[in-house]
């Protein structure tokens, strides 16, 4: 294993390799930042470039892309309330309020630093679990998926704090959105109302583009001014504060990275859930925040961003071990491996350890590189928040709509984005949480599918959910997450009582 690591470093240390890595990283950053493009598109686009390359060169290029996208995505999430890629959506909740307060530099600094560290932790975890990969992936069967989804839904709903009722309502609407389209268990197309586009379900990326980017543009158009209107100039470039805040809140970053690795490794769940869960856990772990979550708490940026990048390592676990991609991006990456005659699976892990470690090193270096680039440019990027809305709105809107189209070259997705822009705008207006809505779209179909599969496996015996170790453990976590609000309220009361006493 050690020689393989050395070989990985050697592979990467030639100028040509570094150039490839930098190119991949830059493409990843750009594609991550533009909503609708994302890492999947970037990897897919670069496939043809790798035709003439050696396998390890292709791996370096792709590793560079994959590690950089979510860092890029965090920048647009913070500055424009527009998640560059779906998992960045959780970053908008506190990142954008920070930008509105003129603290965009700090938020970007924290986000980028958390990304780099999260990425490194994810990769280390990947290396650590290589020997036990098989056991981990085999642990998750339909009942475990079901429990994991339930845990996710409960944890997120609870995290909506004093908008709990509204959070539950938007979660349910999100579940309904998730039911639209083809259902794999019965092969039935549901809630399509005869529209061919809805047969495949409502796709997450156009929905998120509408829900976050365009709805925010509508909101800005109604409000006028600029994003960080009223905030003073001084605070715009506090990038180093952001970097420091990550080290100050290191436990947030560690827990976030843990979520990213763990959930990223479960095929079909992926980074979006990891980032959201990391965010909501953070909100729950911190019952008495200095600044309320959702109103610009820096920890609300660190948690999802560290999870976001850690998931790159995590989602490669099933990809490399079984050839089962943990995310869309790794699915394309898998295609690249196959094109180069590399068969993923145990064979790769055993016969081509040098390639695995080339990937590991490339992911690590790229995560750090992307972060350095973002930190260097953060000052200028933060200026975006001071541009007049009337320049921002039309440009962001059209680019976002092109992005919604580009994902599947499907004009219907533009209409979807537009409809979700409405929904999102009214959710902003009436203060209904978008966190629960987004996560429910993702988890809704997993919940239903894994429930029905469990029932098929167990011949309709519910015992399947409480006679398996991991499943019971997840159930326990669910109960714990539901009990948290009470705990949180108690803490708040105690704090208030203390303050009273001090007066």
């Amino acid at each position: 294993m050690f020689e393989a690591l050395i070989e990985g470093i050697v592979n990467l240390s030639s100028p040509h390799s570094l150039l490839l890595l930098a190119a991949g990283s830059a493409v990843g950053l750009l594609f991550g930042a533009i909503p609708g493009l994302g890492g999947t598109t970037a990897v897919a686009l670069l496939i043809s470039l790798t035709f003439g390359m050696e396998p390890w060169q292709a791996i370096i290029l792709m590793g560079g892309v994959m590690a950089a996208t979510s860092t890029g995505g965090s920048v647009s999430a913070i500055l424009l309330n527009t998640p560059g890629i779906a998992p960045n959506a959780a970053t908008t909740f506190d990142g954008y309020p920070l930008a509105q307060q003129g603290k965009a530099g700090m938020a970007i600094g924290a986000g980028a630093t958390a990304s780099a560290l999260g990425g490194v932790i994810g990769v280390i975890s990947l290396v650590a679990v290589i020997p036990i990969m098989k056991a981990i992936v085999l642990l998750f069967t339909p009942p475990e998926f079901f429990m994991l989804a339930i845990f996710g839904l409960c944890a997120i709903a609870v995290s909506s704090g004093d908008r709990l009722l509204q959070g539950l309502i938007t979660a349910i609407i999100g579940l309904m959105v998730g039911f639209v389209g083809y259902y794999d268990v019965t092969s039935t197309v549901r809630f399509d109302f005869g529209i061919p586009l809805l047969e495949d379900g409502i796709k997450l990326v156009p929905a998120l583009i509408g829900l976050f980017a365009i709805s925010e543009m509508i909101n800005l158009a109604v409000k006028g001014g600029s994003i960080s209107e009223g905030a003073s100039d001084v605070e715009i470039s506090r990038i180093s504060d952001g970097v420091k805040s990550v080290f100050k809140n290191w436990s947030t970053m560690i827990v976030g990275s843990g979520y990213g690795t763990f959930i990223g490794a479960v095929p079909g769940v992926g980074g979006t859930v990891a980032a959201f869960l990391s965010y909501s856990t953070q909100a729950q772990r911190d019952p008495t925040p200095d600044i309320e979550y959702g109103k610009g708490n820096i920890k609300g940026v660190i948690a999802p961003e560290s999870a976001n990048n850690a998931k790159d390592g995590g989602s490669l676990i099933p990809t490399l071990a079984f050839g089962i991609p943990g995310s869309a991006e790794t699915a394309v990456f898998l295609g690249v491996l196959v094109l180069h005659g590399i068969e993923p699976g145990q064979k790769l892990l055993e016969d081509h350890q040098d390639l695995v470690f080339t990937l590991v090193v490339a992911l690590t270096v790229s995560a750090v590189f992307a972060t350095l680039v973002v930190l260097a440019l953060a000052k200028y990027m933060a200026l975006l928040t001071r541009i007049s809305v009337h320049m921002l709105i039309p440009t962001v809107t059209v680019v976002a709509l092109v992005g919604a189209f580009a994902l599947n070259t499907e004009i219907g997705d533009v209409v979807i984005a537009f409809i979700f822009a409405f929904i999102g705008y009214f959710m902003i207006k009436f203060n209904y949480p978008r966190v629960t809505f987004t996560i429910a779209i993702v988890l809704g179909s997993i919940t239903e599918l894994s429930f029905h599969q469990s029932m098929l496996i167990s011949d309709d015996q519910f015992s399947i959910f409480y006679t398996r170790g991991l499943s019971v453990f997840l159930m326990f976590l669910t109960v714990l997450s539901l009990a948290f609000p009470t705990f949180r309220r108690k803490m708040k009361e105690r704090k208030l009582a203390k303050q009273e006493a001090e007066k």
Partner: protein
Amino acid sequence: MRIPEHRRPSAYYILVILAVVVLFIATSYQYKITDRMFPLMVGYVAVPLLLMDLLALTDSKLGEKLSIFFSAKTPTEVDEDADPTERTISQELMIFVWMGALVLGIYLIGFLPCTPVFVYCWMKFRGGYSVKESAYLSIGTIIFVYVLFEIILQYELYPGIFLYWYG
């Protein structure tokens, strides 16, 4: 038991969602048992939640209790938390029309003509920028979109409904 004037828009919003939920439940019944189980469950949970949300808006004792139970805040405190932005219906409608026109335009004649026209018109007529400034940014945007999507990525940007099917 009535809903105070300033909370009426919220109430209408809830009623719209309720209508969607009812439509959803009605649609669910046409599917087989496996297919409708989860949708129905979710639909029927939504109805009481929405009704509670509606009740929490009223000025009744029950409304206050509900509000405190779910948010640890009285309805008046919730009001204070709300986004203070003044929003008039006509203003919102205007912006929906602009955005709607853009989407319709893209649908009919495609991205390439709509992108610069929209950027130009918005800057000129909504932002009050000069002809020159508006033209610069609109040209910049279309170049960015064209170079990135058409040239580098080789996407055929949607050319409008007519060219798409008959081009």
